[in-house]
């Protein structure tokens, strides 16, 4: 399999006054051309920091302290800021939850898009403008020619997110990292955006990392799923396999707490307790304080166990041993 991006033993730590926060702690995965990886976790699980680490946007006091991020044989973690800049927005792009993180509120959309094109391609202003217009049309913005002249505040939330997506896709990136881009949007708008992104990934072979806390979105979109908890991937595998037969008690708890997985009107299965602070993680398995199956063994670091050829989990007491 030809991986577009391969992350190996990535560690991103934040050096705060209160101590070292291991936001991403030994994370490994790869995404192939045209594939969608769903990176699932709750707030503070390190899923966004993983995305930021790949695209080189981790700000101090955070720092990538170990591991490698391999893209076309190069380790992104070791590139200079200059080299990284030439890749970012060109070969590797990102969409954020809040499109205003991408858009400048005081510049017209055309100015921003032309700038983004000319930063990576030697083309005339007129040609850049044509390409911008086509990009807006492609993500489903009506009358793109006129809309080029608008300012971001003149768009609705859904349209603004489309503009951000159009900018991310200007150079047909090899890798697109999407950090909860539809969380703030209505279901009908969310479905429109998912449809666009899915089509683009299929047409251009873009590898996609879709970061979300919403298992339902990922169920329909992802080829493979990585579940993160307290900075680690606790379960990783084929989407259907992870969702239908989760092995890690945390994944199982997450899926069980989705309302549609429960009988109407009955108590939802819930995970007790709350996500621990990264500063006071218990040694061994970070989930053991909330886990019904935990015992003394769990004070050790759980190794990665293989469930089936494309499904691994870190747990001493996996839910079921699924024969492949």
């Amino acid at each position: 399999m030809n991986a577009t991006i391969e992350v190996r033993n990535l560690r991103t730590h934040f050096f705060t006054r209160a101590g070292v926060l291991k936001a991403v702690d030994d994370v490994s995965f790869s995404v192939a051309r045209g594939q969608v990886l769903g990176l699932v976790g709750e707030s503070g699980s390190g899923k966004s920091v993983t995305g930021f680490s790949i695209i080189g946007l981790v700000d101090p006091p955070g720092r990538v302290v170990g591991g490698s991020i391999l893209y076309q044989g190069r380790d992104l973690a070791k590139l200079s800021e200059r080299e990284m800049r030439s890749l970012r927005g060109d070969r590797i792009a990102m969409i954020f939850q809040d499109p205003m993180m991408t858009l400048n509120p005081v510049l017209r959309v055309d100015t921003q898009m032309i700038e983004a094109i000319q930063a990576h391609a030697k083309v005339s202003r007129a040609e850049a403008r044509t390409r911008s217009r086509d990009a807006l049309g492609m993500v489903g913005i009506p009358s793109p020619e006129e809309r080029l002249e608008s300012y971001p505040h003149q768009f609705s939330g859904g349209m603004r997110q489309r503009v951000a997506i159009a900018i991310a896709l200007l150079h047909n990136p090899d890798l697109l990292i999407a950090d909860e881009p539809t969380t703030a949007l209505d279901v009908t708008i969310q479905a429109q955006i998912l449809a666009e992104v899915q089509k683009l990934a299929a047409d251009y072979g873009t590898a996609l990392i879709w970061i979300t806390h919403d298992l339902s979105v990922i169920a329909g979109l992802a080829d493979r799923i990585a579940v993160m908890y307290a900075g680690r991937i606790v379960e990783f595998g084929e989407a259907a396999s992870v969702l239908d037969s989760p092995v890690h008690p945390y994944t199982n708890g997450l899926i069980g707490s989705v309302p549609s997985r429960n009988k109407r009107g009955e108590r939802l299965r819930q995970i007790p307790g709350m996500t621990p602070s990264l500063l006071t993680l218990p040694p061994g398995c970070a989930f053991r304080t909330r886990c019904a199956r935990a015992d003394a063994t769990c004070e050790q670091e759980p190794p990665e166990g293989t469930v089936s050829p494309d499904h691994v989990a870190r747990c001493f007491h996996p839910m079921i041993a699924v024969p492949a």
Partner: protein
Amino acid sequence: MTAPIIELRGVSKRFGPAYDAAARITRGLTRRFGGAPKNETVRAVDTVDLTVARGEVVGLVGESGCGKSTLGRMVAGIMPPSDGQVLFEGRDIATLSAHEAKTAKLKVQMIFQDPYASLNPRLRVAEIVGEAPRIHGMIPHGEFDTYLDAQLRRAGLDPAYKRRYPHQFSGGQRQRIGIARALAVQPEFLVCDEAVAALDVSIQAQILNLFMDLRRELDLTYLFISHDLGVVEHLSDRVLIMYLGRIVESAPTEAVFTHANHPYTRALLSEVPRIEARKRRFTAITGEIPSPLNPPTGCHFHPRCPFAMARCSVESPALREIAAGHRSACHLND
């Protein structure tokens, strides 16, 4: 038969700018010289009828800007309607004496979406939860602490934390504080406006369970406002679907999810991502919600509706009964 706990009759809410003297003169002049001043009034809620029976859980679903929060606020009595009547136990709130109105208002409490914005950051938990019942004289003299501790415990909070400030709690715990505050005045009716939308999945399940336990324990009635159909399906006895200020469909939960009638409801249901779904192609209703400043004529949904006929753009469909307890506002039913 007892009167429904809450009844709305033809309730509307309009929001418009407050015109100062200069604006009034300009608008007057525009009219005088034959122009039409710009319409700047939003009909957030447009002639809505609604009854909620005691003990019922009613889910209210709609996309942003459809007026569901405004409707919830009018039910909770924190926003007066522009037109129409709000009845509590069969009596119009507007006609009650000051004392009766206060009692009625205490019986309906609200829980808000944002557990960060809805708690005063400068008050301790004890004050946030205990202030209202103390002021309304609900606590016997000398029993403040006992009362408070019981309220906190009921919402799943440790009374040992009552001297803390909101910022010392996580999102889920803050939502519990909001719930304890609402329940401290012994309400009978809770309006929950996107009460779990800001929470992580595992915490969301805990709070939903708390709502269901409290319903059984205290015999509560809920109006549960959410954009999350999964949550509404799980919790509600009856579901209302709102689009651009109007209720377009109202039916028992089973009926909505098995045979929805209104094209908007059907489109909405097909968009909902489901965990049971595997790698699938997403499709979408085209277009966006039109601006409520300038809603489409006739049926508000007709520009996006795949079944729209000539009549739909002219005549606004009435909400009519199509089966027992199932009402829908669509010309296709004629």
